[in-house]
């Protein structure tokens, strides 16, 4: 037998590719999806990273292409999901978790101990790693900041295989704040220590107001938000004319024990997540159209009370009504949808109004429209929140949407605002660069810690990150 017939050493087994897309179900690409069960797995994955690179993937709730990596490796972190230690007595109370723990699991573990996750986005089905990478925010941003503000430390696996513990202050601060909001492009978050808050109950005391129009809404939010930890408005982006931008404003605080009715007081930290099952994948394109959008908007507005004070609501009612049904994104059909979220400074209130008019007049139908006042931003180099108004609209993919999005981009840019990368699926590298003034600092950090560009995603290629 000659030496030539000896087979080459077997290549590291790479799994076959699978199609991956974001929550918006658009622009799918195929990647090698590799499960990470241990830190050793993650290190091994980096060692064998090919030219298409590696990106971490959690529960796939980013709307666009942040957690997909065409032709490369996507590391499924959802099995690295242990809660390592929970210190309920500390000041503040803290929890150490692996990156793949979902906020849902963490909340269910912490709540019976009277502990609360300080920042929850619109769904609990996100991982801690994803929450850091996108620096997610919730309805309490104006009082609590974003997720990164509550991370006390994290372990980051760098491109060269080193694991570094990062803290928000001191010599590791620069990399810490590049990683918060850094969309997974500085390294793999392995575990994090998060500061929790104490709560007396799992309920909220909620005030609801229906506003006549947009002016009424902005006025009420500007003057009243400070009295509430949580504040958010749903507004009607379909109805035009006099009632343009009419809204339902819900604001609340964590309910104290003495605010609960006697029945709930017996078990104030009880939490049951209702689930009405999974939406089947049978919806045609075009179901969310002008007629259904108008009917929904009318219903949603009318069903809210005109003015109600001190209603006790549970977590699902107040926070995550959409978590009741799994895979709700399927109602948009196979063409998918995009979520457009931007923020503009408070000084740009007029531009903000123009944006709402632009959306309502465009003929594109958005049913889930969220308006919120942000508080101060943090040091995250690519973190999204900044003081100002943020608006989110859900738009089914239809012809002509490019034009509306471009007009909105221009408006956001002209006011010094920006779009949220966790939602983005269509910005150009050029527009993005003009939205994020600290991009060059981020790129400098990235060149230092990942000079060969091991960490890559479809988003990073699209935006030149």
């Amino acid at each position, binding site marked *: 037998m000659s030496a030539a017939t000896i087979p080459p050493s077997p290549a590291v087994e790479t799994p076959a590719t699978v199609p991956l897309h974001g929550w918006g179900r658009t622009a799918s690409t*195929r990647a090698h999806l590799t499960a990470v069960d241990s830190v050793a797995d993650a290190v091994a994955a980096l060692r064998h990273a090919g030219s298409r690179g590696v990106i971490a993937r959690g529960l796939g709730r980013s709307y666009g292409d942040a957690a997909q990596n065409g*032709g490369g490796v996507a590391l499924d972190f959802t099995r690295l999901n242990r809660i390592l230690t929970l210190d309920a007595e500390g000041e503040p109370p803290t929890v150490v978790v692996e990156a793949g723990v979902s906020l849902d699991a963490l909340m269910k573990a912490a709540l019976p101990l009277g502990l609360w996750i300080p920042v929850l986005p619109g769904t609990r089905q996100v991982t801690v790693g994803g929450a850091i990478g996108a620096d997610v925010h919730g309805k309490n941003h104006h009082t609590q900041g974003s997720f990164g503000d509550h991370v006390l430390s994290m372990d980051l696996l760098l491109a060269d295989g080193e694991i570094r513990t990062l803290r928000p202050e001191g010599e590791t601060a620069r990399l810490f704040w590049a990683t918060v909001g850094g969309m997974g492009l500085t390294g793999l978050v392995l575990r994090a220590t998060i500061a929790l808050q104490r709560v007396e109950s799992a309920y909220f005391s909620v005030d609801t107001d229906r506003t006549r129009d947009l002016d009424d809404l902005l006025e009420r939010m500007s003057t009243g938000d400070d009295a509430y930890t949580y504040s958010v408005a749903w507004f009607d982006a379909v109805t035009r004319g006099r009632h343009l931008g009419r809204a339902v404003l819900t604001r609340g605080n964590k309910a104290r024990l003495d605010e609960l009715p006697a029945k709930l007081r017996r078990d104030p930290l009880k939490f049951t997540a209702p689930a009405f099952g999974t939406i089947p994948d049978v919806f045609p394109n075009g179901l969310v159209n002008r007629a259904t959008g108008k009917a929904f908007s009318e219903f949603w507005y009318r069903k809210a009370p005109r003015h109600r004070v001190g209603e006790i609501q549970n977590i699902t009612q107040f926070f995550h009504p959409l978590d009741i049904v799994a895979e709700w994104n399927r109602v948009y059909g196979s063409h998918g949808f995009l979520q457009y979220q931007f923020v503009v400074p408070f000084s740009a209130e007029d531009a903000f109004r123009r944006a709402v008019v632009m959306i309502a007049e465009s003929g594109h139908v958005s049913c889930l429209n969220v308006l919120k006042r942000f508080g101060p931003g943090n040091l995250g180099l690519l973190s999204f929140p900044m003081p100002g108004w943020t608006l989110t609209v859900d738009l089914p993919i239809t012809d002509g949407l490019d034009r509306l999005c471009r007009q909105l981009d221009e408006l956001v840019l002209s006011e010094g605002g920006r779009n949220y990368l966790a939602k983005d*699926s*269509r910005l150009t590298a050029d527009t993005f660069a003009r939205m994020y003034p600290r991009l060059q600092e981020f790129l400098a950090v990235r060149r230092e810690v990942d000079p060969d560009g091991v960490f890559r995603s479809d988003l990073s290629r*699209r935006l030149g990150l």
Partner: protein
Amino acid sequence: MDALGNPRSVLLLGGTSDIALAVARRYGASGAPRPRLVLAARPGERRTGVAATLRGEGFEVGEVDFEARRPETHAATVEQAFAEGDIDVAVVAFGILGDAERAWVDAEHALELAEVNFTAPVHTGVLLGQAMSRQGHGQIIALSSVAGERVRRSNFVYGSTKAGMDGFYLGLGEALAPHGVKVLVVRPGFVRSKMTEGMDPAPLSVTPEQVAEQAVAAARAGKELIWVPGAFRWVMTVLRHVPRVLFRRLPI
């Protein structure tokens, strides 16, 4: 490719062809971001001129040398085309019509048609498929012709080359689907372009812009095969089944 189905980069093989250029312009229309273009064509004044015009229109344009009849250079062409980043859409738009009556008596001319219209598209098609599989996404738009659907006496050398490349790209689409790569085969009728200059337009003739509009719409919709104009689908369905004794008497 973004969420709205806009490619961010388009490779034009046959980068100076009227249809290829019309496809590129179509992708950048209606408020969509203009894709980065890579023109793969023979170096020279024509390519330089086209690139300058496109840059003037606001496109970012790269140029890559491409000689259809030099297969030994194709791998380098494709490699260079992908060197600056992913290619979202590749348009295979090169080809020659030739002289129909010369082509079946002049072996050299027949060979030229076969190499440019069939061998080179097959060779580059394999290379494109490999490059796009590696990036986990991509779409190929292959310009075929109704002439290949039922080859007729009046231009059977050209028709037979198109029949071959048409079949190849339909099959390539099947083979590449599991790798995230899509293929669209476009069968235009008579296109009033540089290629057909001086000829009398046949019935149902179209402009390069019309071909581009239909091709881009079909590509966005993820279709695999279209006719331009659409009516050709039904015309060809009938013609395909006409018995030979009748077919040879038809004035086509």
